[in-house]
């Protein structure tokens, strides 16, 4: 049986009972990109920053202690794996869980830093992520209620759309936007980036980019605008 999702043919599915991962050339590419970047992060060392002050020669070097470095690398790898999982999952419910994991891990990556303003930004980001989990899960629940299933493959074969699906999709998108900190909520994330330890912080960025692309794919599958 040839099944196509958004015009691209399914290369294969990985059935694990209820939980089904599926691969098209589109999300297989994003999956590989997330895994490759995670691998680069796992073998890379952290950068050191130099803080300069105006009017003086008092430059300070900011380094990351080894314990904190290891902890951050671990969380960054978890974040990369969650991103990779969100790329290939065939389940709206799994997708929400992966996005939530990304949100929590992003807080954790910057949670151990010593600068007060970065901690402040992480606190604000955490509040947004926590508030955003409401539309995220509510959107998934409304999609479940209106489509009768959370499997993307099953939703793909539905022939109708209802207004409730549209509402669910909008809520899901709001949730993902808040959870990954894009568009209206990016101010706190930009502030979080000012801490030393660059390669691990970049996974925060990459995960949000890939997840946004993926959520748009899921919303197109659900609402079938074409």
């Amino acid at each position: 049986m040839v099944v196509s999702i958004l015009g691209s043919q399914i290369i294969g599915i990985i059935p694990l009972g209820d939980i089904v991962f599926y691969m098209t050339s589109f999300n297989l590419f994003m999956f590989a990109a997330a895994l490759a970047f995670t691998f680069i992060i796992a073998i890379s060392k952290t950068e050191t920053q130099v803080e300069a002050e105006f009017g003086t020669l008092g430059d300070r070097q900011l380094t990351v202690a080894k314990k904190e470095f290891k902890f951050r690398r671990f969380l960054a790898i978890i974040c990369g794996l969650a991103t990779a999982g969100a790329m290939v999952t065939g389940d709206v419910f799994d997708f929400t869980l992966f996005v939530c994991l990304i949100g929590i891990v992003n807080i954790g990556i910057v949670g151990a830093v010593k600068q007060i303003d970065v901690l402040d930004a992480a606190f604000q980001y955490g509040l947004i992520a926590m508030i955003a989990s409401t539309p995220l899960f509510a959107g998934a629940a409304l999609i479940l209620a209106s489509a009768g299933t959370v499997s993307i493959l099953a939703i793909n074969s539905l022939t109708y759309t209802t207004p409730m699906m549209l509402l669910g999709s909008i809520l899901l998108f709001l949730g993902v936007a808040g959870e990954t900190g894009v568009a209206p909520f990016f101010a706190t994330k930009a502030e979080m980036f000012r801490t030393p330890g660059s390669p691990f912080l970049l996974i925060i960025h990459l995960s949000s980019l890939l997840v946004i692309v993926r959520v748009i794919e899921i919303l197109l599958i659900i609402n079938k605008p074409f």
Partner: protein
Amino acid sequence: MLVLVPPVVSPVVVAIYAPAVIVGIIVALIGLFGISIEKNDLHVLILTDIVGIAMLIIVAAVGTDLAESLILPGLVVELAEILAICEILMSREMRKTGKSVALIPTPLNFDMEILQTAPVFIAVILVIYGAFLSGFTGGAIAGGGILFYVMSLTVRGVPSSLWEGIAGASGIAWCLWLMGFLVLFVFPNYWLLGLMLAAFGVFIKVAFKAGLIGVMNREEFRKE
């Protein structure tokens, strides 16, 4: 309009769905309004929990078993996020003031007669009954038994290596639970094996987790 609800469901339950979703949205908006006018960080954190409860209302309105699979992770995610944000708030305040505080600031002080006079027999009964129940509930009951035993023995003192060993066994039992779930997903034919692994894994894990609270208590007792 297409109706997905099977006919066995009472029409009253079906009629509640739309009002429940609206109530959830209203609760979320009340929480957001509270956050917008509140300036204290701790109060904002507590108000955020109200928005999380709105999510539970909307998911619970769906009321199928798939919705149940959403509601439990939703609750766990809310708890995990609130704990993470609390930690960040605490570490920020510690950096600001320069003082550091322990996770549990005050030592627990139980001076109850029942802990010395009650027989340990009750703990044995609780553990056996928990083993009979198995699963999460049984684990909680057996853990209560272990906790009771620890609390009644704190006067005499318990060897600490014993409880550290129990903590390790708890971790291994959790791996059993995970393996049980993997068996259920990958080899559905062996569902009975998977079920038993998961049930007894989570039983041992929860029982020893509750026992670990006893360990912490014991250490706090010794501090005095």
